[in-house]
Protein backbone atom coordinates (compact mmCIF):
# COMPACT_ATOMS: atom_id res chain seq x y z
CA UNK A 1 0.00 0.00 0.00
CA UNK A 2 2.95 2.25 0.51
CA UNK A 3 2.80 3.22 -3.13
CA UNK A 4 -0.84 4.12 -3.22
CA UNK A 5 -0.88 7.41 -1.43
CA UNK A 6 0.23 9.25 -4.54
CA UNK A 7 -2.52 7.75 -6.60
CA UNK A 8 -5.68 8.64 -4.87
CA UNK A 9 -4.94 12.30 -4.56
CA UNK A 10 -5.15 13.93 -7.93
CA UNK A 11 -2.92 16.91 -8.32
CA UNK A 12 -5.49 18.70 -10.40
CA UNK A 13 -8.54 18.27 -8.29
CA UNK A 14 -10.93 20.10 -10.54
CA UNK A 15 -9.79 18.86 -13.85
CA UNK A 16 -11.93 16.79 -16.09
CA UNK A 17 -12.12 14.15 -13.48
CA UNK A 18 -13.83 16.52 -11.14
CA UNK A 19 -16.59 17.27 -13.63
CA UNK A 20 -17.24 13.71 -14.43
CA UNK A 21 -17.43 12.97 -10.78
CA UNK A 22 -19.86 15.78 -10.19
CA UNK A 23 -22.30 14.28 -12.56
CA UNK A 24 -21.87 10.74 -11.47
CA UNK A 25 -21.93 11.81 -7.88
CA UNK A 26 -25.22 13.54 -8.35
CA UNK A 27 -26.63 10.61 -10.16
CA UNK A 28 -25.37 8.23 -7.54
CA UNK A 29 -26.71 10.39 -4.78
CA UNK A 30 -30.10 10.46 -6.38
CA UNK A 31 -30.16 6.77 -6.91
CA UNK A 32 -28.90 5.94 -3.49
CA UNK A 33 -30.66 8.50 -1.46
CA UNK A 34 -33.85 6.55 -1.38
CA UNK A 35 -32.09 3.63 0.11
CA UNK A 36 -30.08 5.02 2.99
CA UNK A 37 -31.41 2.31 5.21
CA UNK A 38 -30.06 -0.29 2.85
CA UNK A 39 -26.51 0.61 3.71
CA UNK A 40 -24.60 -0.86 6.52
CA UNK A 41 -22.99 2.32 7.63
CA UNK A 42 -21.00 5.06 5.92
CA UNK A 43 -18.16 2.78 4.87
CA UNK A 44 -20.59 0.61 3.00
CA UNK A 45 -22.03 3.65 1.30
CA UNK A 46 -18.55 4.86 0.38
CA UNK A 47 -17.77 1.49 -1.09
CA UNK A 48 -20.87 1.68 -3.21
CA UNK A 49 -20.03 5.19 -4.34
CA UNK A 50 -16.49 4.14 -5.17
CA UNK A 51 -17.85 1.62 -7.64
CA UNK A 52 -19.06 4.47 -9.80
CA UNK A 53 -15.44 5.33 -10.44
CA UNK A 54 -15.04 2.05 -12.22
CA UNK A 55 -11.42 1.66 -11.28
CA UNK A 56 -9.48 -0.70 -9.12
CA UNK A 57 -9.96 0.26 -5.53
CA UNK A 58 -6.23 0.79 -5.27
CA UNK A 59 -6.47 3.50 -7.84
CA UNK A 60 -9.49 5.17 -6.53
CA UNK A 61 -9.60 8.91 -6.21
CA UNK A 62 -10.34 9.47 -2.59
CA UNK A 63 -10.87 13.14 -3.23
CA UNK A 64 -13.54 12.44 -5.81
CA UNK A 65 -15.06 9.93 -3.48
CA UNK A 66 -15.16 12.45 -0.67
CA UNK A 67 -16.93 14.87 -2.96
CA UNK A 68 -19.42 12.25 -3.98
CA UNK A 69 -20.14 11.45 -0.41
CA UNK A 70 -20.53 15.09 0.55
CA UNK A 71 -22.86 15.59 -2.38
CA UNK A 72 -24.85 12.66 -1.16
CA UNK A 73 -25.17 14.14 2.27
CA UNK A 74 -26.13 17.52 0.81
CA UNK A 75 -28.80 15.89 -1.24
CA UNK A 76 -30.12 14.07 1.78
CA UNK A 77 -30.34 17.38 3.59
CA UNK A 78 -32.24 18.93 0.72
CA UNK A 79 -34.66 16.09 0.76
CA UNK A 80 -34.86 16.39 4.50
CA UNK A 81 -33.82 12.83 4.97
CA UNK A 82 -32.59 12.17 8.42
CA UNK A 83 -29.15 10.65 8.28
CA UNK A 84 -27.79 8.66 11.17
CA UNK A 85 -25.09 10.34 13.18
CA UNK A 86 -22.30 8.18 11.86
CA UNK A 87 -23.04 9.30 8.32
CA UNK A 88 -22.66 12.89 9.44
CA UNK A 89 -19.49 12.13 11.33
CA UNK A 90 -18.09 10.59 8.20
CA UNK A 91 -19.16 13.63 6.20
CA UNK A 92 -17.37 15.93 8.58
CA UNK A 93 -14.29 13.80 8.43
CA UNK A 94 -14.36 13.66 4.64
CA UNK A 95 -14.72 17.43 4.47
CA UNK A 96 -11.66 17.68 6.65
CA UNK A 97 -9.85 15.17 4.48
CA UNK A 98 -10.81 17.09 1.39
CA UNK A 99 -9.37 20.29 2.75
CA UNK A 100 -6.18 18.48 3.68
CA UNK A 101 -5.88 17.09 0.21
CA UNK A 102 -6.51 20.40 -1.51
CA UNK A 103 -4.46 22.74 0.65
CA UNK A 104 -0.71 22.67 0.55
CA UNK A 105 0.65 20.87 3.60
CA UNK A 106 1.18 23.08 6.60
CA UNK A 107 4.70 22.46 7.89
CA UNK A 108 3.60 23.48 11.39
CA UNK A 109 0.99 20.79 11.54
CA UNK A 110 2.27 17.48 12.78
CA UNK A 111 -0.96 15.61 12.20
CA UNK A 112 -1.17 12.91 9.57
CA UNK A 113 -0.99 14.14 6.02
CA UNK A 114 -4.00 14.12 3.77
CA UNK A 115 -2.29 11.46 1.70
CA UNK A 116 -1.91 9.21 4.72
CA UNK A 117 -5.53 9.63 5.63
CA UNK A 118 -6.66 9.04 2.09
CA UNK A 119 -4.50 5.97 1.82
CA UNK A 120 -5.99 4.59 4.97
CA UNK A 121 -9.50 5.17 3.77
CA UNK A 122 -8.66 3.46 0.52
CA UNK A 123 -7.24 0.58 2.53
CA UNK A 124 -10.39 0.32 4.61
CA UNK A 125 -12.54 0.23 1.51
CA UNK A 126 -10.37 -2.33 -0.13
CA UNK A 127 -10.37 -4.45 2.98
CA UNK A 128 -14.12 -4.27 3.35
CA UNK A 129 -14.58 -5.22 -0.26
CA UNK A 130 -12.14 -8.07 0.15
CA UNK A 131 -14.11 -9.34 3.12
CA UNK A 132 -17.36 -9.10 1.20
CA UNK A 133 -15.81 -11.03 -1.58
CA UNK A 134 -14.42 -13.59 0.81
CA UNK A 135 -17.82 -13.94 2.45
CA UNK A 136 -19.42 -14.59 -0.90
CA UNK A 137 -16.84 -17.21 -1.78
CA UNK A 138 -17.30 -18.79 1.58
CA UNK A 139 -21.04 -19.01 1.23
CA UNK A 140 -20.62 -20.51 -2.22
CA UNK A 141 -18.57 -23.43 -0.97
CA UNK A 142 -19.91 -26.93 -0.72
CA UNK A 143 -21.97 -26.64 2.39
CA UNK A 144 -22.95 -29.32 4.79
CA UNK A 145 -26.63 -29.95 4.60
CA UNK A 146 -26.90 -28.32 1.19
CA UNK A 147 -24.18 -29.73 -1.03
CA UNK A 148 -22.63 -32.42 1.04
CA UNK A 149 -24.33 -34.53 3.61
CA UNK A 150 -23.44 -36.25 6.80
CA UNK A 151 -24.47 -39.70 7.79
CA UNK A 152 -28.21 -39.55 8.05
CA UNK A 153 -28.59 -42.31 10.53
CA UNK A 154 -25.70 -42.24 12.92
CA UNK A 155 -25.33 -45.40 14.92
CA UNK A 156 -23.11 -44.34 17.71
CA UNK A 157 -24.56 -45.63 20.88
CA UNK A 158 -22.63 -43.63 23.40
CA UNK A 159 -20.30 -40.84 22.56
CA UNK A 160 -16.80 -41.55 23.58
CA UNK A 161 -15.68 -39.19 26.24
CA UNK A 162 -12.85 -39.12 28.67
CA UNK A 163 -15.18 -38.78 31.55
CA UNK A 164 -18.73 -39.71 31.39
CA UNK A 165 -21.09 -38.09 33.73
CA UNK A 166 -24.06 -40.10 34.70
CA UNK A 167 -27.20 -39.55 36.56
CA UNK A 168 -30.10 -41.85 37.04
CA UNK A 169 -33.67 -40.91 36.57
CA UNK A 170 -33.97 -41.18 40.30
CA UNK A 171 -31.24 -38.58 40.77
CA UNK A 172 -33.10 -36.34 38.44
CA UNK A 173 -36.42 -36.74 40.15
CA UNK A 174 -34.90 -36.37 43.56
CA UNK A 175 -33.18 -33.20 42.50
CA UNK A 176 -36.42 -31.83 41.20
CA UNK A 177 -38.30 -32.93 44.27
CA UNK A 178 -35.70 -31.28 46.42
CA UNK A 179 -36.07 -28.06 44.53
CA UNK A 180 -39.81 -28.05 44.54
CA UNK A 181 -39.94 -28.86 48.24
CA UNK A 182 -37.61 -26.01 48.89
CA UNK A 183 -39.73 -23.91 46.67
CA UNK A 184 -42.76 -24.57 48.79
CA UNK A 185 -41.43 -23.06 51.91
CA UNK A 186 -38.66 -20.85 50.66
CA UNK A 187 -40.02 -18.95 47.73
CA UNK A 188 -37.16 -16.51 47.59
CA UNK A 189 -33.94 -17.84 48.84
CA UNK A 190 -31.11 -15.53 49.55
CA UNK A 191 -28.31 -17.76 50.56
CA UNK A 192 -26.21 -15.04 51.96
CA UNK A 193 -24.68 -15.70 55.29
CA UNK A 194 -24.51 -12.17 56.58
CA UNK A 195 -28.11 -11.31 55.82
CA UNK A 196 -30.96 -11.84 58.20
CA UNK A 197 -34.19 -11.42 56.34
CA UNK A 198 -37.17 -9.67 57.76
CA UNK A 199 -39.11 -12.90 57.40
CA UNK A 200 -36.58 -14.67 59.54
CA UNK A 201 -36.66 -11.88 62.08
CA UNK A 202 -40.44 -11.97 62.14
CA UNK A 203 -40.49 -15.70 62.59
CA UNK A 204 -38.11 -15.32 65.46
CA UNK A 205 -39.84 -12.47 67.19
CA UNK A 206 -43.44 -13.58 66.91
CA UNK A 207 -43.20 -16.35 69.45
CA UNK A 208 -40.96 -14.21 71.65
CA UNK A 209 -43.18 -11.18 72.11
CA UNK A 210 -45.42 -13.19 74.32
CA UNK A 211 -42.67 -12.92 76.89
CA UNK A 212 -42.15 -9.21 76.49
CA UNK A 213 -44.58 -8.09 79.11
CA UNK A 214 -42.33 -5.18 79.96
CA UNK A 215 -40.16 -2.88 77.94
CA UNK A 216 -37.26 -4.84 76.52
CA UNK A 217 -34.39 -3.56 74.45
CA UNK A 218 -34.62 -4.38 70.78
CA UNK A 219 -31.05 -5.56 70.70
CA UNK A 220 -31.86 -8.42 73.01
CA UNK A 221 -33.96 -9.97 70.26
CA UNK A 222 -31.08 -10.45 67.91
CA UNK A 223 -30.53 -14.11 67.25
CA UNK A 224 -27.56 -15.88 68.81
CA UNK A 225 -24.39 -15.53 66.87
CA UNK A 226 -25.46 -12.32 65.16
CA UNK A 227 -24.09 -9.87 67.68
CA UNK A 228 -20.39 -10.29 67.26
CA UNK A 229 -19.70 -9.65 63.60
CA UNK A 230 -20.61 -6.02 62.82
CA UNK A 231 -22.00 -6.83 59.38
CA UNK A 232 -24.20 -9.55 60.76
CA UNK A 233 -25.24 -7.40 63.67
CA UNK A 234 -26.20 -4.58 61.37
CA UNK A 235 -28.28 -6.83 59.20
CA UNK A 236 -29.91 -8.52 62.15
CA UNK A 237 -30.70 -5.21 63.78
CA UNK A 238 -32.22 -3.79 60.65
CA UNK A 239 -34.28 -6.89 60.00
CA UNK A 240 -35.44 -7.12 63.56
CA UNK A 241 -36.35 -3.47 63.60
CA UNK A 242 -38.33 -3.86 60.41
CA UNK A 243 -40.06 -6.92 61.83
CA UNK A 244 -40.89 -5.06 64.98
CA UNK A 245 -42.37 -2.18 63.00
CA UNK A 246 -44.43 -4.69 61.12
CA UNK A 247 -45.75 -6.15 64.38
CA UNK A 248 -46.39 -2.72 65.81
CA UNK A 249 -48.39 -1.89 62.73
CA UNK A 250 -50.35 -5.06 63.25
CA UNK A 251 -51.04 -3.84 66.75
CA UNK A 252 -49.22 -6.66 68.44
CA UNK A 253 -46.65 -4.60 70.26
CA UNK A 254 -45.62 -1.11 71.20
CA UNK A 255 -42.34 0.64 70.55
CA UNK A 256 -40.62 3.53 72.16
CA UNK A 257 -37.42 5.43 71.83
CA UNK A 258 -36.43 8.16 74.21
CA UNK A 259 -34.36 10.20 71.79
CA UNK A 260 -32.49 10.16 68.56
CA UNK A 261 -30.15 7.19 68.46
CA UNK A 262 -31.34 6.08 71.85
CA UNK A 263 -32.01 2.38 72.29
CA UNK A 264 -35.36 1.18 71.04
CA UNK A 265 -37.46 -0.90 73.35
CA UNK A 266 -40.61 -2.82 72.81
CA UNK A 267 -43.31 -4.60 74.72
CA UNK A 268 -46.40 -6.59 74.03
CA UNK A 269 -49.63 -4.62 73.63
CA UNK A 270 -51.44 -4.98 76.90
CA UNK A 271 -54.94 -5.39 75.57
CA UNK A 272 -53.98 -7.99 73.07
CA UNK A 273 -54.07 -11.08 75.19
Amino acid at each position, binding site marked *: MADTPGQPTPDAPHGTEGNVTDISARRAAEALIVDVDGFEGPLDLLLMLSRTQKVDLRRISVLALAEQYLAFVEKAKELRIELAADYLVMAAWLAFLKSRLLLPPDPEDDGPSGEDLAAHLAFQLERLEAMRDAAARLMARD*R*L*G*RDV*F*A*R*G*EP*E*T*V*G*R*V*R*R*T*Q*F*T*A*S*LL*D*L*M*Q*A*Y*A*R*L*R*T*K*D*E*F*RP*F*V*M*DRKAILTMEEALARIRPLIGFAGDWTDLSSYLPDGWQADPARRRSATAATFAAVLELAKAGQLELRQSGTFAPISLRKRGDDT
Partner: protein
Amino acid sequence: MSNDPQAPENELDPSLFEAPPMGEQERMVEAVLFASADPVTIKDLTARLPHGSDPTTALVHLEKRYEGRGVRLVRVGEAFAFRTAPDLSFLMRRETVETRKLSRAAIETLAIIAYHQPVTRAEIEEIRGVGVSRGTIDQLLEMEWIRIGRRRMTPGRPVTFVVTEGFLDHFSLESARDLPGLKELRAAGLLDNRPPPSGAETEGEAPSESEEGDLFDGDAALGSDAPDPPDGAR
Protein backbone atom coordinates in the same frame (compact mmCIF):
# COMPACT_ATOMS: atom_id res chain seq x y z
CA MET B 1 -13.31 -47.73 -9.60
CA SER B 2 -16.26 -45.50 -9.82
CA ASN B 3 -16.86 -45.73 -13.50
CA ASP B 4 -16.20 -49.38 -13.78
CA PRO B 5 -17.82 -51.01 -16.69
CA GLN B 6 -20.56 -52.83 -14.97
CA ALA B 7 -22.67 -50.67 -17.12
CA PRO B 8 -23.61 -53.27 -19.74
CA GLU B 9 -26.85 -54.00 -17.95
CA ASN B 10 -27.84 -50.61 -19.04
CA GLU B 11 -27.52 -51.40 -22.69
CA LEU B 12 -30.67 -53.39 -22.33
CA ASP B 13 -32.50 -50.19 -21.90
CA PRO B 14 -32.40 -48.54 -25.23
CA SER B 15 -30.69 -45.38 -24.18
CA LEU B 16 -33.87 -43.46 -24.55
CA PHE B 17 -33.45 -42.08 -21.10
CA GLU B 18 -29.73 -41.88 -21.03
CA ALA B 19 -29.51 -43.28 -17.56
CA PRO B 20 -26.08 -42.68 -16.10
CA PRO B 21 -23.59 -45.54 -16.29
CA MET B 22 -24.03 -48.20 -13.64
CA GLY B 23 -20.93 -47.05 -11.81
CA GLU B 24 -22.52 -43.65 -11.37
CA GLN B 25 -25.80 -45.16 -10.31
CA GLU B 26 -23.96 -47.14 -7.72
CA ARG B 27 -22.35 -43.95 -6.38
CA MET B 28 -25.74 -42.32 -6.26
CA VAL B 29 -27.36 -45.14 -4.37
CA GLU B 30 -24.41 -45.13 -2.03
CA ALA B 31 -24.77 -41.43 -1.29
CA VAL B 32 -28.52 -41.57 -0.86
CA LEU B 33 -28.38 -44.50 1.53
CA PHE B 34 -25.59 -42.87 3.45
CA ALA B 35 -27.36 -39.57 3.92
CA SER B 36 -30.82 -40.85 4.55
CA ALA B 37 -32.07 -40.96 8.10
CA ASP B 38 -34.14 -44.02 7.35
CA PRO B 39 -33.75 -47.09 5.23
CA VAL B 40 -34.62 -46.32 1.64
CA THR B 41 -36.95 -48.41 -0.50
CA ILE B 42 -36.31 -49.31 -4.10
CA LYS B 43 -39.28 -47.22 -5.02
CA ASP B 44 -37.72 -44.24 -3.33
CA LEU B 45 -34.42 -44.86 -5.03
CA THR B 46 -36.10 -45.11 -8.37
CA ALA B 47 -37.83 -41.83 -7.77
CA ARG B 48 -34.65 -40.07 -6.75
CA LEU B 49 -32.19 -41.43 -9.26
CA PRO B 50 -32.14 -40.06 -12.78
CA HIS B 51 -34.81 -41.43 -15.03
CA GLY B 52 -34.06 -44.87 -16.38
CA SER B 53 -31.75 -45.86 -13.56
CA ASP B 54 -31.81 -49.35 -12.18
CA PRO B 55 -31.34 -49.14 -8.44
CA THR B 56 -31.91 -52.84 -7.92
CA THR B 57 -28.82 -53.67 -9.93
CA ALA B 58 -26.90 -50.83 -8.36
CA LEU B 59 -27.75 -52.24 -4.96
CA VAL B 60 -26.39 -55.62 -5.94
CA HIS B 61 -23.11 -54.02 -6.95
CA LEU B 62 -23.02 -51.92 -3.87
CA GLU B 63 -23.67 -54.87 -1.62
CA LYS B 64 -20.77 -56.68 -3.18
CA ARG B 65 -18.54 -53.68 -2.82
CA TYR B 66 -19.20 -53.46 0.89
CA GLU B 67 -18.84 -57.16 1.49
CA GLY B 68 -16.34 -57.68 4.25
CA ARG B 69 -16.00 -53.98 4.92
CA GLY B 70 -16.59 -52.24 8.22
CA VAL B 71 -20.00 -51.25 7.00
CA ARG B 72 -22.48 -53.40 5.14
CA LEU B 73 -25.45 -52.88 2.98
CA VAL B 74 -28.40 -54.53 4.64
CA ARG B 75 -31.99 -55.01 3.81
CA VAL B 76 -34.47 -53.72 6.34
CA GLY B 77 -37.90 -54.92 5.42
CA GLU B 78 -38.54 -53.50 1.99
CA ALA B 79 -35.77 -50.98 2.29
CA PHE B 80 -32.00 -50.76 2.33
CA ALA B 81 -29.54 -49.14 4.65
CA PHE B 82 -25.91 -49.18 5.69
CA ARG B 83 -25.14 -50.78 9.01
CA THR B 84 -22.00 -51.41 10.98
CA ALA B 85 -20.66 -54.88 10.39
CA PRO B 86 -21.92 -57.02 13.25
CA ASP B 87 -18.44 -58.11 14.29
CA LEU B 88 -17.51 -54.48 14.87
CA SER B 89 -20.48 -53.59 16.97
CA PHE B 90 -18.19 -53.60 19.99
CA LEU B 91 -16.69 -50.39 18.62
CA MET B 92 -20.02 -48.71 18.81
CA ARG B 93 -20.70 -49.74 22.31
CA ARG B 94 -17.32 -48.86 23.59
CA GLU B 95 -17.28 -45.96 25.91
CA THR B 96 -14.32 -44.85 27.87
CA VAL B 97 -15.99 -45.45 31.11
CA GLU B 98 -14.75 -43.14 33.68
CA THR B 99 -18.14 -42.43 35.01
CA ARG B 100 -18.67 -39.66 37.41
CA LYS B 101 -21.78 -38.47 39.09
CA LEU B 102 -23.14 -35.22 37.90
CA SER B 103 -22.71 -32.47 40.41
CA ARG B 104 -25.70 -31.45 42.41
CA ALA B 105 -25.82 -28.11 40.68
CA ALA B 106 -25.80 -29.83 37.30
CA ILE B 107 -28.45 -32.36 38.12
CA GLU B 108 -30.71 -29.72 39.60
CA THR B 109 -30.26 -27.52 36.60
CA LEU B 110 -30.95 -30.45 34.34
CA ALA B 111 -34.05 -31.35 36.31
CA ILE B 112 -35.38 -27.82 36.02
CA ILE B 113 -34.76 -27.76 32.31
CA ALA B 114 -36.42 -31.14 31.88
CA TYR B 115 -39.50 -30.19 33.89
CA HIS B 116 -39.84 -26.60 32.77
CA GLN B 117 -38.53 -26.50 29.27
CA PRO B 118 -38.17 -24.29 27.42
CA VAL B 119 -36.69 -22.35 30.27
CA THR B 120 -34.33 -19.41 30.44
CA ARG B 121 -31.29 -19.17 32.59
CA ALA B 122 -32.93 -16.51 34.72
CA GLU B 123 -35.84 -18.83 35.35
CA ILE B 124 -33.53 -21.64 36.33
CA GLU B 125 -31.85 -19.34 38.77
CA GLU B 126 -35.15 -18.27 40.17
CA ILE B 127 -36.22 -21.83 40.74
CA ARG B 128 -32.92 -22.93 42.19
CA GLY B 129 -32.67 -19.81 44.28
CA VAL B 130 -29.00 -19.48 43.42
CA GLY B 131 -27.02 -18.50 40.39
CA VAL B 132 -26.30 -21.06 37.73
CA SER B 133 -22.69 -21.06 36.74
CA ARG B 134 -21.76 -20.89 33.12
CA GLY B 135 -19.82 -24.10 33.62
CA THR B 136 -22.87 -26.04 34.67
CA ILE B 137 -24.80 -25.09 31.58
CA ASP B 138 -21.77 -25.72 29.42
CA GLN B 139 -21.31 -29.15 30.88
CA LEU B 140 -24.88 -30.11 30.14
CA LEU B 141 -24.59 -28.68 26.65
CA GLU B 142 -21.42 -30.60 26.09
CA MET B 143 -22.99 -33.80 27.27
CA GLU B 144 -25.67 -33.01 24.76
CA TRP B 145 -28.37 -33.51 27.30
CA ILE B 146 -29.60 -30.00 26.80
CA ARG B 147 -29.48 -27.67 23.90
CA ILE B 148 -30.47 -24.15 23.12
CA GLY B 149 -34.10 -23.79 22.19
CA ARG B 150 -36.01 -20.87 20.84
CA ARG B 151 -35.48 -17.43 22.11
CA ARG B 152 -38.13 -16.24 24.50
CA MET B 153 -40.15 -13.42 23.01
CA THR B 154 -39.63 -11.22 26.01
CA PRO B 155 -37.38 -8.21 26.44
CA GLY B 156 -33.81 -9.16 25.86
CA ARG B 157 -34.97 -12.20 23.91
CA PRO B 158 -33.16 -14.60 26.21
CA VAL B 159 -32.29 -18.02 24.90
CA THR B 160 -34.10 -20.95 26.38
CA PHE B 161 -32.84 -24.41 27.12
CA VAL B 162 -34.55 -27.66 26.31
CA VAL B 163 -33.51 -31.25 26.77
CA THR B 164 -32.31 -33.30 23.83
CA GLU B 165 -33.09 -36.68 22.40
CA GLY B 166 -29.83 -37.75 23.96
CA PHE B 167 -31.24 -36.86 27.34
CA LEU B 168 -34.36 -38.87 26.70
CA ASP B 169 -32.24 -41.74 25.51
CA HIS B 170 -30.13 -41.69 28.59
CA PHE B 171 -33.07 -41.70 30.91
CA SER B 172 -35.04 -44.07 28.75
CA LEU B 173 -37.89 -41.67 28.35
CA GLU B 174 -40.12 -41.49 25.35
CA SER B 175 -40.63 -37.80 25.86
CA ALA B 176 -40.10 -35.24 28.55
CA ARG B 177 -43.78 -35.53 29.31
CA ASP B 178 -43.03 -38.94 30.71
CA LEU B 179 -41.24 -37.43 33.64
CA PRO B 180 -43.21 -38.16 36.75
CA GLY B 181 -45.29 -35.24 37.93
CA LEU B 182 -45.20 -33.79 41.38
CA LYS B 183 -48.04 -35.99 42.52
CA GLU B 184 -46.15 -39.07 41.53
CA LEU B 185 -43.02 -37.79 43.13
CA ARG B 186 -44.90 -37.31 46.33
CA ALA B 187 -46.53 -40.69 46.07
CA ALA B 188 -43.11 -42.18 45.67
CA GLY B 189 -42.09 -40.48 48.86
CA LEU B 190 -39.63 -38.29 47.08
CA LEU B 191 -41.25 -35.03 47.96
CA ASP B 192 -41.62 -35.77 51.60
CA ASN B 193 -38.13 -36.74 52.42
CA ARG B 194 -37.49 -33.24 53.57
CA PRO B 195 -40.62 -32.10 55.36
CA PRO B 196 -41.21 -28.41 55.20
CA PRO B 197 -40.60 -26.85 58.60
CA SER B 198 -43.76 -24.85 58.83
CA GLY B 199 -45.79 -27.91 58.00
CA ALA B 200 -49.45 -27.49 57.39
CA GLU B 201 -49.90 -24.99 54.66
CA THR B 202 -47.54 -26.50 52.16
CA GLU B 203 -49.49 -29.68 51.78
CA GLY B 204 -52.54 -27.87 50.53
CA GLU B 205 -51.21 -25.42 48.03
CA ALA B 206 -48.66 -27.67 46.52
CA PRO B 207 -47.43 -26.33 43.21
CA SER B 208 -49.93 -28.68 41.83
CA GLU B 209 -50.43 -30.53 38.65
CA SER B 210 -52.05 -27.57 37.03
CA GLU B 211 -48.82 -25.78 37.10
CA GLU B 212 -47.19 -28.89 35.91
CA GLY B 213 -49.56 -29.04 33.02
CA ASP B 214 -48.29 -25.76 31.77
CA LEU B 215 -44.81 -26.88 31.58
CA PHE B 216 -45.25 -28.77 28.45
CA ASP B 217 -47.92 -26.87 26.74
CA GLY B 218 -45.27 -24.75 25.20
CA ASP B 219 -44.98 -26.40 21.87
CA ALA B 220 -41.28 -25.96 22.00
CA ALA B 221 -41.48 -28.59 24.66
CA LEU B 222 -39.20 -31.08 23.11
CA GLY B 223 -36.68 -31.03 20.41
CA SER B 224 -38.97 -32.35 17.80
CA ASP B 225 -40.52 -29.33 16.28
CA ALA B 226 -37.88 -26.79 16.93
CA PRO B 227 -35.02 -28.44 15.22
CA ASP B 228 -31.47 -27.63 15.72
CA PRO B 229 -30.95 -23.97 15.67
CA PRO B 230 -28.26 -23.74 13.12
CA ASP B 231 -27.98 -24.31 9.50
CA GLY B 232 -27.15 -27.67 8.31
CA ALA B 233 -24.52 -28.28 10.88
CA ARG B 234 -24.85 -31.50 12.76
